[in-house]
């Protein structure tokens, strides 16, 4: 493990970047980044062929530090940029990191449409149940009753279940893990990248500085240990009642289906269209007619 960590540090971090990073000590974003890099390393992907895109937020800073083709886009829109990149160059492996607010508030529409569209992209959502970067306001993933800087009396709305939202929107692959389960997280990210089609990885993470502090959840270590206690595997969850699952985090693969990938479908119909068009052009040129003159 240590040896791999060293390889990852040497091979994948941008040493010309003016470190230190922006994250608070103990933030789960670092664990997600480590798992992501080990997954890419394990898959033997060429750095030149990997694009890491992000939105805006603490999680959104991840690409800055990593030596891939990286793009830090606008708040909530990362998947739209990733879509353009992937369509323009389908050979690239395009990974997209987003925060919970990023992906499901301002970017909610892009998120469900990316899932519906089924382009071969991987979305990694770092769910820390708050807007970390802007100072701990409530997000669409903030639990009912929680305190935040915009719900000091307790939150009156209900949270999205992000992974289930992705399943309902039609994502080909959906998995969930937590920053406690670093090895599991790496395995799940690996599967998500390998999956052909739109894959979603929800990572339950800690923002002890904002969300944790206001809700008396303790520091980084306590919060991360809490994820361990709260987690149940998909298999175990199957045998549990909704009441028993209250407050639990179901980890593992929640959906894995095979369906046509729109990028590939597009290439197929484009190939056919081109063939047809070439025939028409040839026939017309033979008769001395050029396009548009019909």
């Amino acid at each position, binding site marked *: 493990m240590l040896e791999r960590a060293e390889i990852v540090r040497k091979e994948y971090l941008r040493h010309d970047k003016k470190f230190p990073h922006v994250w608070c000590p103990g933030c789960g974003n670092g664990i997600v980044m480590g798992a992501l890099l080990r997954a890419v390393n394990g898959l033997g992907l060429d750095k030149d062929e990997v694009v890491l895109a992000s939105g805006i937020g603490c999680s959104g800073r991840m690409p800055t530090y990593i030596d891939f083709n990286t793009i830090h*886009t606008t708040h909530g829109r990362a998947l*739209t940029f990733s879509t*353009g990149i992937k369509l*323009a*160059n389908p050979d690239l492996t395009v990974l997209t990191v987003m925060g919970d607010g990023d992906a499901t508030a301002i970017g909610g529409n892009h998120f469900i449409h990316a899932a519906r569209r089924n382009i071969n992209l991987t979305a990694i959502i770092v769910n820390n149940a708050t807007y970390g970067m802007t100072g701990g306001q409530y997000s669409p993933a903030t639990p009912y009753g929680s305190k935040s800087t915009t719900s000091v009396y307790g939150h009156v709305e209900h949270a999205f279940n992000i992974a289930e939202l992705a399943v309902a929107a039609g994502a080909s692959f959906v998995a969930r893990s937590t920053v406690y389960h670093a090895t599991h997280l790496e395995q799940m990210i690996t599967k998500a990248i390998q999956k052909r089609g739109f894959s979603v990885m929800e990572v339950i993470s800690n923002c002890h500085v904002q969300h944790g502090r206001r809700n008396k959840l303790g520091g980084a270590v306590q919060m991360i240990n809490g994820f361990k206690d709260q987690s149940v595997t998909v298999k175990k969850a199957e045998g549990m009642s909704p009441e028993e699952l209250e407050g639990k985090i179901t980890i593992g693969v929640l959906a894995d289906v095979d369906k046509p990938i729109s990028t590939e479908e597009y290439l197929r119909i484009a190939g056919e269209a081109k063939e047809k068009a*070439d025939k028409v052009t040839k026939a017309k040129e033979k008769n001395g007619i050029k*396009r*548009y003159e019909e």
Partner: protein
Amino acid sequence: MENPEKQKKVLLQGNEAIVAGALAAGCRFFAGYPITPASEISELLSVRLPELGGTFIQMEDEIASMGAVVGASLAGTKSMTATSGPGFSLIQENLGYACITETPCVIVDVMRGGPSTGLATNPSQGDVQMARWGTHGDHPIIVLAVSSVADCFSITVKAFNLSEKYRTPVILLSDEVVAHTRESVVLPEDEQIRVFDRVRPDVPPEWYKPYADNNRGVPDMASFGDGYRHHVTGLVHDEKGYPTQDPQEIDQFLRRIHSKISKGFNEIQVVKTFLMEDAEIFVIAYGSVARSALRAVRDARKAGIKAGLLQLVTLFPFPRKSVDTYLRQCRVAVVPEMNLGQMGREVSRVNQSDCRIVKHNKIDGQLITPDEILKHLTTV
């Protein structure tokens, strides 16, 4: 560059000619969202791009369209979107991203009456100042306007060329009249079309600095996937592309992206003149209004009035030099617009002579007729 739409004389509407121009310029990616009066551009490209090995996608809204356009351009493909007022409002966020990341792309705005849903099928020129200032912060931008079907082809090619050369988004303003008018035009032969492609780096990847200044002020641009791994961000960045808080680096960066455009003023600021040599009174017009203006000027000449037309093709950066020259030459400038004076205010701003400026503003959803302009030319 081969013009895929080559032919002799053809009957086209403005929107179709924009498509032909874009394809001739090498555009191979389009993302858009349906809206009148721009939809024909999407529809036609959804047919033509697959045939040419390009990509068409209809996104969930215009914010997404603009994101996809920037993404595709960063991956090395010439890209564009087309929309109208309500969609133009939505693209502003990622348009600013294209400005700060210096990503070439073309945005067509077929103007209709506003604000809001406004007048969906009526012409207008109400988006002119928005095209200049729509996205937040001091930013450089190029805005061009088309007035005829022939323009729709050639100015679209120009828009792509400028965007590639200066690494900047270029906004092409059309209006409902130009978009839907059918005219017989002769599209240029392949060899007559000049196409400019972005300058790509040739240094070893470890030397590459994606935002380093050079004598043009326009850094060489690598594509994602071609070995020059680099970072792109909407934060103000240093020459390596990493976010910076250093006042000197911030200042240098923001000044460079503005000065790269001013360095190219001679090439960027395009105007057309008609009968201006001896003109004593002239019309400053753009878009479909320039057509009416030309007719009015010809009629005025017949009546013995020394009238001329200065047609603005480039609206921004405002072609101050040309405008100033003729303001000094003439005693009256008539500025007809289908808005409440969005270009007229630019003309007034630069006027340093005693030329009188007469603004003719129409916002009832109807186009400006030659007679309306002629009336000014004969009475002032």
